């Protein structure tokens, strides 16, 4: 277990540094890192500190959040298909964020943006759990997800189409696919408090999620307070997904791919999967964000495009595997 932890942590560190060193502007590794640490005048410290550092930090924070929330939701719903993007939580968060931006709330009060996204995510996650609860089948979960995602996407498009601003309609792509391009340290500041709160809420759920492997009755008889656990899960997920979506749009499939890959490596224990998926999520988002810069450096390729290209086939595979329980 220690080996897995060290490996994942080392991967995060390596990719974090790579993320700092890759970008459309050609900056030497040594020069860049020196400028990052020492500062100074000129464009290089500006690029390193104001553009690349926030981007790499956000990739880690968002990856951690999405991986962690995916593993937590899967543990609670006991279903490997539960993923914030697929079941509409990210979409609902995006709706909240779009409302905050286009009503001027976020301009009046900076934290209005992540909090509105949190409110959106909260509505989404509560709907999913109400519709697909722990006893729900994969079919109910997927259907609930489709309904919530479509609704959130439609309302997001509506808000953007109603805007008098000519740029608004183009933003649909950002909110649906997500991007870390040209984010700033202020975005880190906006997202971090909520994410920290979410991590603190979600990480200790492991013990209860482990017990839930045996079903609700057995878990309850082992002292797990299910209603309290559900509340913590809902709020924790809304915090991390809301904060991530508010600053980077809806990045899908991270919470699906990462737990799926890591589950065999942690002996399928939901508690261990929590932190492992957090680290794994950071690895995946860092890698995907590097890839968008390496594959099409001149275009603003959306991060969610890459995660979906990896995640959608896996999603199909998982549906194929679980189709026996579908009618």
């Amino acid at each position, binding site marked *: 277990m220690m080996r897995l932890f060290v490996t994942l942590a080392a991967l995060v560190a390596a990719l974090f540094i790579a993320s700092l060193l890759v970008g459309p502007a050609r900056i030497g590794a040594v020069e860049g890192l020196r400028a990052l640490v020492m500062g100074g005048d000129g464009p290089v410290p500006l690029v390193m500190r104001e553009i690349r550092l926030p981007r790499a930090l956000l990739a880690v924070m968002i990856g951690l959040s999405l991986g962690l929330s995916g593993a937590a939701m899967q543990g609670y719903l006991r279903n490997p298909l539960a993923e914030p993007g697929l079941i509409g939580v990210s979409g609902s968060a995006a709706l909240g964020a779009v409302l905050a931006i286009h009503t001027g709330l976020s301009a009046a009060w900076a934290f209005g943006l992540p909090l509105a996204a949190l409110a959106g995510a909260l509505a989404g996650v509560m709907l999913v759990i109400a519709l697909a609860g722990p006893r729900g089948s994969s079919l109910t979960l997927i259907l609930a997800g489709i309904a919530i995602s479509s609704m959130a996407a439609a309302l997001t498009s509506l808000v953007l189409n109603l805007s008098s601003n000519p740029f608004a309609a183009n933003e649909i792509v950002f909110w649906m696919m997500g991007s870390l391009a040209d984010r700033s340290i202020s975005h880190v500041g906006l997202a971090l408090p909520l994410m920290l709160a979410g991590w603190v809420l979600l990480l200790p759920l492991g013990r209860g999620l482990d017990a839930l*492997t*045996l079903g609700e009755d057995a878990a309850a008889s082992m002292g797990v307070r299910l209603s309290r656990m559900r509340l913590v899960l809902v709020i924790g997920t809304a915090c991390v997904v809301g904060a991530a979506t508010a600053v980077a749009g809806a990045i899908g499939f991270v919470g699906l791919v990462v737990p799926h890959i890591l589950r065999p490596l942690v002996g399928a224990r939901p508690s261990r999967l929590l932190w492992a998926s957090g680290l794994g999520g950071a690895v995946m988002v860092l890698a995907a964000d590097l890839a968008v810069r390496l594959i099409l450096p001149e275009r603003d390729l959306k991060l969610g495009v890459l995660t979906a290209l990896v995640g959608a086939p896996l999603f199909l595979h998982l549906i194929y595997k679980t189709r026996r329980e579908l009618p």
Partner: protein
Amino acid sequence: MTLLALDDLSVSLRGRDIFTGVNARVEAGEFVGLIGPNGAGKTTLMRAALGLVAARGHSSLLDHGAAERARLVAWMPQARDIAWPVSVEALVALGRVPHLPVGRPLSARDQAHVDAALSAMGLDDMRRRTATRLSGGEQARVLIARALAQDTPLLMADEPIAGLDPANQISTMQVFAGLAAEGRAVIASLHDLGLAARHCTRLMLMGEGGLVADGPPGDVLTPDNLARVFHVNAWFERTPHGPVFQPLEVIG
């Protein structure tokens, strides 16, 4: 020592009385077989005693908080839920959850309980196998081991031996009887009246909306009770091999 006291316990679900006015005490050293036809409320009675379903009346287990209760009674539900492909050993170790402070790994003492539970259910060779890939009967034994690992004075199990082969049914009943003999108590709902008659120290017969009879197997499995509650007659005799009970035919 009384490990469970039920006073005037009644449960209604959706306006229908499942059972009413159940009074019972279970003492240390007892292996109680909870018997009765389908739908008599055996599962609901145990769940109500554990506080998993709302009930009127009183169950002594509910005098304790959820965490404390988990150290007093272990519960093996009938549904054999194993959500994730964990190893047998990891699954059995979940029984130690109520005893572990948050975030603490298994201590040597916890591991000893896990090992003992695995041995008791004959799972030593299977500890590394993936629980979800086992047969139904094997999974049942793993789940019993999980409940054993919880190491509680009282164990409640819902149809623990359903689906087991004869050898495993008998050895499981012997494990439960052994627990009772060492000063604990076991309450298990059972459909095999023959095994119940042979191994249980006491039977509780559910039917007709409540507890019909409660006492040693010989006092409960009377022709009259069997005819009234189960609609069968049976052959029941004390033999040199112990009590033997065999239902014969459906009556009326």
